[in-house]
């Protein structure tokens, strides 16, 4: 029975991991840009939600607001800084985003202090759901449902709309897009902001579960990379499948062999890269 609950719990975790990783994946897919600052956007989203709630905003306002602010900041960063870096070797993608992540992290410590804090789950979701011997916080259930709806919306956006078509075409041949008269630079900015905003949203959603502390971005980045690599860089469905896979694996390992949980996850990631270089669902 415990295993069944662990799987359920793992799916809940996995949805959050999906949200965290899908932005990284989209940014890589379109911009071929390795973003080591992705965890920093998650961190910022969590702290903005925290600040909002501390200032008396309802969580339902603070959470989307945090995501929008993160997206806006990311858009500005892309325009002013990252745009100049795309053409450089990816060494510099990594260097500049590692630098950016450090700046954000230290900025968070300067503004909010190094101690971290707590974000209460909204009142209507502060209870638990009881299923026989199994207990599950209502807030976590909400996160699963909310992320599922979001995942569907995102799929619709990228697969069924004109924007999605432009994005997909742009990722395959930016030159052609430019020739057709599309402003690829603006599209790049929009996609970067969208990806970062999703990370910010993941941070805001995670805050009532995990609390906030200045080093949460580093952990999130590690998970996001694992999910993206396993799922396939640039693959939306891959991020979803891999997110849930990693979440379930992590949760099951808590019962089976907790000491080795991380080891197994990274071994799995290395194994997948070796066996399926494009990841589970990346197309060759």
């Amino acid at each position, binding site marked *: 029975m415990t295993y069944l609950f662990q799987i359920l719990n793992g799916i809940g975790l996995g949805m959050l991991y999906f949200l965290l990783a899908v932005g990284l994946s989209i940014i890589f897919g379109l911009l071929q840009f390795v973003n080591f600052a992705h965890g920093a956007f998650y961190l910022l989203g969590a702290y903005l939600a925290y600040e909002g709630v501390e200032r008396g905003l309802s969580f339902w306002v603070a959470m989307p607001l945090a995501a929008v602010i993160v997206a806006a900041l990311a858009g500005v960063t892309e325009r002013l800084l990252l745009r100049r870096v795309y*053409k450089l*070797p990816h060494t510099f993608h990594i260097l500049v985003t*590692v630098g950016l992540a450090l700046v954000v992290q230290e900025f968070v410590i300067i503004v909010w202090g190094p101690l971290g804090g707590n974000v209460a789950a909204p009142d209507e979701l502060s209870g638990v759901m009881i299923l026989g011997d199994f207990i599950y916080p209502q807030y976590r259930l909400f996160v699963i449902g909310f992320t599922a709806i979001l995942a569907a919306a995102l799929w619709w956006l990228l697969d069924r709309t004109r924007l999605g078509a432009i994005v997909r075409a742009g990722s395959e041949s930016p030159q052609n897009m430019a020739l057709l008269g599309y402003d690829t630079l603006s599209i790049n900015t929009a996609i970067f902001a969208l990806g970062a905003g999703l990370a910010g949203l993941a941070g805001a959603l995670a805050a009532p579960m995990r609390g906030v502390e200045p080093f949460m971005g580093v952990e999130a980045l590690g998970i996001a990379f694992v999910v993206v690599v396993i799922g396939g860089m*640039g693959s939306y469905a891959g991020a979803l499948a891999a997110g849930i896979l990693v979440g379930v694996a992590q949760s099951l390992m808590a019962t089976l062999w907790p000491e080795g949980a991380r080891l197994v996850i990274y071994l799995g*990631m290395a194994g997948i890269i070796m066996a399926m270089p494009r990841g589970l669902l990346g197309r060759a």
Partner: protein
Amino acid sequence: MIPILDRPLVQFGLATAAVLILPLVMRSGTLASEILIFGLAVAACNLLLGYTGLLSFGQGIFFGIGSYVAGLGLVRAGLPAPVMLAVSLGVGALVAAVVGWVSIRRQGVYFVMLTLAFSQMFYFLAYTFSGITGGDNGFLDIPRPTLVGTRLTDPWTYYAYVAVLFLVLFAALQRVALSTFGRTLLAIRDNEARAGAIGYPVRAFKVAAFAISGAVTAFAGALHAMLIGVAPLSNIDYHTSETLLIMTIIGGSANLFASLLGAGAYLLAADALSAIWPRWLLALGLLLIVITLFLQRGLWGLIERAIALVTRAPPPDDPARPVGTNPPVAHAPEVAR
């Protein structure tokens, strides 16, 4: 580039001068030793990044393993330091060859991710097998080496010991870089497909570069453990890999003296800044951004420009490829949804 500065004798002369000047200008022999030790590890990292175009997050693995090997040999087996330094070279080469052999099967971002996965795996191995490594407490009580019967506890005496070894290995790395082997690495870096088409066994060369780099890094790790008396878990973690990469890029280009420059600048700045400003990592972050935008050839590139300015020579070849000149990730058609 300014050719005269890249001559091997000039490079070695600069390294020797640095080794001799450090004791005159620095108060702390311990920090000076650390600069040389990291200088060595960064030069080894440069062999991969600058010469071969391989951006590896695995250098910390070898640094940490060197520390643990030194600890195990010196404390548990009671072997003398020179033996353990030799053993750490060997073990470092071996592990690096295996990590390299697996990782180079993938390219670009996937290569980076594989080295990242390896780095995490070795960290958790060291963490899990705490009976051997001391786990989070670290492997304690690692002694300084002895020379003619005296233990080198004095900071500047140990510095002298490190300095001699540093120059020997620096010269050895120079030989490697200048050999046909080294020139082939550069050819692989600049155009891997062509190097392969000409008939070079590209993979074997990359694995060899990994092995040499890993050997020297583990050697530096062993010297570091003897310096601070402990092989801490942090020596094998991801941050050590990251720091070594950052130092390499700060130093700049495929030039071994630049690596010493990078290590020295980083450590001195970190030491000075952390004493006056707890949030000094913010400055480091900004520095990385500035380097990316304006100083892609690192401090060494800056020095070259400065010299060119003073001597009114034609400005250095700016399009010269910056560090880690693997081509931008190929514009992949692999995007899928």
